[in-house]
């Protein structure tokens, strides 16, 4: 195990920011902590970095307990949201800094700086100051500074959130390629589900200081355990229809067909789903298909709004009275006000906890 977070808690005064988080991160894994602001993801990362001390719990890196070690003794590197570059040093000075602090000899330093600058495509910027280069270039410098000393663990705190959308997409691919190539264990914090889905080997979705689900991106998308995860991942979000156990052990749902179609096995896969007495039947918008004339087994819905996005089309529907659902289809001729038939495959239905 590369990084182990064991039952870590962090409280600021009486406010518990992180509530008993535990996770094992494997060697070379790209692990993403995803969640809205204030969910404790950055605090957890900072505890791994040693910039915050946990109130309780333990952090191990490469099997060594580093819970109360100084950051410099953890053999980690970190990229910050605002880059954290040293404004008074040149780009070369910035990249060289960790080597200089570790008293490596000048010739080795020079060689390593040149190498990593070449790799990051910032060789031509070496003599500039951070204030003289663009945001994307600054983030490259900060990555170069992190990579130059070959760390065992690479921590990234929303490194792309200050960049524009286009550059973010480019850097996303580059970072993923780079750390996979170098085989560095990476913990990456973001609130952007696209970043999480596209980069992660494994995602931890966090809410109110807890990891609510830890899974691979596809599993997270396919089988969200709770409403929070279901709504946080995927755009448009998963359709969730309140469901509760009725008489005879069968579920009841506002759209009865869905409750009937839900495979028995689903309950076994997410046994906690109905723990509170009620849960949701969930279905991803792209798993709904629209027929202009309802067929047998379909349920009926009223078209509210059609949003053509080019590649796909979002169709906003009302079914079973006032239940609003969204379907994502390629193209449709349906118009607002039309009544259409919606068909569902039973294996795309999920049971989700409230």
């Amino acid at each position, binding site marked *: 195990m590369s990084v182990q977070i064991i039952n870590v808690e962090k409280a600021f005064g009486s406010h518990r920011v992180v509530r008993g988080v535990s996770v094992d991160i494997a060697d070379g894994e790209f692990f993403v902590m995803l969640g809205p602001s204030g969910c404790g993801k950055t605090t957890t990362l900072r505890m791994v970095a040693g910039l915050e001390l946990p109130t309780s719990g333990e952090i191990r890196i490469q099997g060594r307990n580093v819970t109360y070690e100084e950051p410099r003794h953890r053999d980690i590197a970190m990229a910050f949201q605002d880059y*954290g570059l040293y404004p008074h040093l040149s780009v070369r000075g910035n990249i060289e800094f960790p080597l200089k*602090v570790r008293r490596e000899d000048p010739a080795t330093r020079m060689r390593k700086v040149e190498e990593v600058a070449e790799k990051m495509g910032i060789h031509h910027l070496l003599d500039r100051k951070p*204030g003289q280069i663009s945001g994307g270039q600054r983030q490259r410098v900060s990555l170069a500074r992190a990579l130059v000393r070959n760390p065992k663990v690479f921590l990234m705190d929303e490194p792309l959130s200050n960049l524009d959308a286009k550059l973010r997409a480019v850097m996303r691919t580059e970072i993923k390629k780079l750390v996979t190539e170098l085989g560095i264990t990476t913990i990456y914090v973001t609130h952007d589900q696209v970043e999480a889905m596209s980069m992660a080997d494994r995602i931890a979705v966090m809410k109110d200081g807890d990891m609510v689900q830890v899974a691979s991106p596809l599993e997270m998308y396919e089988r969200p355990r709770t409403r929070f995860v279901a709504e946080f991942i995927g755009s448009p979000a998963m359709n969730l229809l309140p469901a509760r156990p009725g008489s005879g052990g069968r579920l009841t749902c506002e759209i009865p067909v869905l409750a009937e179609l839900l495979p028995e096995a689903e309950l076994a896969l997410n046994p906690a789903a109905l723990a509170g007495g009620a849960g949701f039947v969930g279905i991803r918008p792209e798993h709904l298909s629209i027929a202009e004339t309802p067929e047998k087994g379909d349920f009926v819905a009223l078209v509210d709004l059609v949003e053509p996005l080019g590649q796909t089309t979002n169709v906003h529907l009302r079914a079973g009275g006032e239940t609003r659902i969204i379907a994502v289809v390629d193209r449709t001729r349906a118009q607002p006000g039309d009544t259409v038939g919606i068909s569902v495959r039973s294996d795309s239905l999920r049971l989700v906890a409230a």
Partner: protein
Amino acid sequence: MAATLAEHRARQRRAAALYWALALLATAFFFFPVFWMFASAFKSDAVSSTYPPVFLFAPSLENFAHLFTEAGAGRALWNSFFIVTLSTLLAMIAGTMAAYALARFDLRGKNTLALEILSIRMLPPIVSVIPLFMIARWLGVFDTPWLLIAVYTLTGLPFVVWIMRVFIQDIPQSVEEAAMIDGCGRIEAFWRVTLPLLLPGLAATMVIVFMFAWNEFLLASLLTSSEAKTLPVIAANAIKPKAIAFGLACAAGVVMSVPVIVLVLMMQKYLVQGLTLGAVKG
């Protein structure tokens, strides 16, 4: 159109000339006392008492000679240098460290603490003179440089703490954190990263603290008698019960202002940065 453009240009030129004249006037107004001081310092007593005042005269060093031979300015100049330099340094070092702690660490009640530090500054100096005098006598440091060094360090400290705290808060924490992750301990991170970024703020603060102590008269006159007298005290001696020795006073003024002018010129590059820092975020 060409005509109106020319008119516009002419109007602009007239406006510029007017502003220029006003600026010159304002400068003359503020500079005149300084000029008067420098001029009077080089006038002999006979010249300086004539009315109307003369602007062309044979400069004489009579006042300076008197100042350094009879008034003991040499000793006082050295005292001033020694006391003010040392107290400024002490206040800067201790004050910056305190400011760092207040800016960066989670201390319980740190705002109260900061206010407490500032409260020294709220006390009118005259109030503290008698207790200071008694303590000094008891400790046997009355009329020694050490007493004034302690007093100036203490009065400079709150100012340094409050100003430097703002400068430190302006430096993003992530810069220091990056340094700590890159292999520095906290002190090394401060030394290698924070301190270089603080230089403009340090320079601006230092000049102000230095000037304050350098010109301080009240405490210096009451807490010294002969050995530890500083320049302002000597300058004040020019005011005699029956007459004011203007030439002497002005000569003392010149001797006092030259080091400050030199210091400001030396620090000019940093001063401008320091005094405007925080006005516009980079």
